């Protein structure tokens, strides 16, 4: 591919799509490269009720609309790709795809997002879809009349536990700490929901069953005491990890693997910016990702403009 784009965006979630919308609307030739389906984790969100200007919508509807907007402004979208090489230090940046294609651009925005964190214990992969789930909305009704466990202590865990009480006869929340990280209102609602029980300072160390999940082995962290806890299902909501494994040594990362940027979303490498859930930040919301995508796009546009201006001045001097 000899075509040189102005902007190459790696990642097609809200940050990447917002950057794509802004860049292509500014008449910059823009491509978004995405490893999976466009929309990122928003697609995995059932109801979105706090996106300003949109009273309530399905996550996939919001993602589909963002994708359409980017496409309508002329942004090129390439999905389901794998990047094998990054060359970011030259004036024209290059990324090489696993099929050998090379994408060239004057600037790059990394918006690789994150993915749900797993417990990393025995049986977790084996029982995925056979009792272990990451989506109460999708799989909740399989557990009608059954007893389930929710792992986690943040907003997602508690909100999903509350929604699971529509189906399950009993919901037990396991959390590794002695307090929750969720907002106080969410904690209150969970505590006031009769079907919800809490087991604090405990963690799952093994999933047990034959054809499907039947129990978990849990450990009380302070005492190390272990016990078998019978359950029909486990829903895991323990946060996210950034998709930056292949960026080690390429971009500045902190010890959590998050990309370090300044307030302009600049990574420190000329022409290279980052936005969304893969950057080091405190709050991970659709709105923050969208804002960072916008800032990265505008910052990169300014960088490209300054490069073009410099080139024009040099040309004038020679003439």
């Amino acid at each position, binding site marked *: 591919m000899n075509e040189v784009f102005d902007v190459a965006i790696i990642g097609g979630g809200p940050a990447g799509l917002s950057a794509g919308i802004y860049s292509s609307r500014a008449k910059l030739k823009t491509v978004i490269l995405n490893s*999976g389906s466009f929309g990122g984790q928003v697609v995995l969100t059932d109801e979105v009720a706090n996106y300003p200007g949109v009273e309530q919508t*399905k996550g996939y509807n919001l993602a589909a609309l963002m994708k359409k907007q980017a496409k309508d402004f002329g942004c090129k979208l390439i999905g*389901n790709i794998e990047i094998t090489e990054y060359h970011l230090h030259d004036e024209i940046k290059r990324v090489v795809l696993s099929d050998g294609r090379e994408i060239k651009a004057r600037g790059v925005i990394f918006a690789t997002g994150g993915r749900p964190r797993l417990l990393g214990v025995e049986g977790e992969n084996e029982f*995925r879809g056979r009792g272990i789930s990451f989506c109460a909305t*999708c*799989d909740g009704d399989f557990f009608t009349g059954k007893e389930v466990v929710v792992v986690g202590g943040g907003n997602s865990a508690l909100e999903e536990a509350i929604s699971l009480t529509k189906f399950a006869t009993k919901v037990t929340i396991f959390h590794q700490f002695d307090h929750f990280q969720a907002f106080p209102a969410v904690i209150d609602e969970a505590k006031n929901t009769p079907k919800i029980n809490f087991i604090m300072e405990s963690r799952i160390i093994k999933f047990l069953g034959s054809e499907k999940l039947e129990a978990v082995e849990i450990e009380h962290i302070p005492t190390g005491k272990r016990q078998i806890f019978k359950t029909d299902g486990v829903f895991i909501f323990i946060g996210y990890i950034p998709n930056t494994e292949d960026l080690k040594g390429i971009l500045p990362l902190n010890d959590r693997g998050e990309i370090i940027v300044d307030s302009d979303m600049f990574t420190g490498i000329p022409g290279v910016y980052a936005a969304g859930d893969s950057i080091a930040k405190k709050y991970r919301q659709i709105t923050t990702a969208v804002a960072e995508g916008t800032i990265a796009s505008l910052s990169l546009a300014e960088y490209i403009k300054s490069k073009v201006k410099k080139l024009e001045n040099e040309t004038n001097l020679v003439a």
Partner: protein
Amino acid sequence: MLRTSLHEIETAEELKKLQEENENLMVCCGRMGPMCIPVYDIMEELEEEYPHVKFAVMAFDNPEAAIIRNDPACRGFMGLPFTMYYKNGKTVKATTSIQNRQQITSILNEYFQK
């Protein structure tokens, strides 16, 4: 009704007909939900790459989808979507919950060689 560009199977009889007419058939049985949409998206993209495979979807809540829900290969499944792979009318593989492109193509390459 599923909002995808893939062919949607409405009845059990139609599924049987598709199995008879297509040596290789992949059917994703789900809802318009977070775990299912990524699978539909991948199937839409694979339609061009795997012309020897027929790709279709079926709504999980359609009573006619009992033919998939009750398939012995789906015993113990508790995660949407249920994705079925049929070769010459026989179920050769079934998966539960979300799958990525690599997982899907490795099944297609194993069971539905060109």
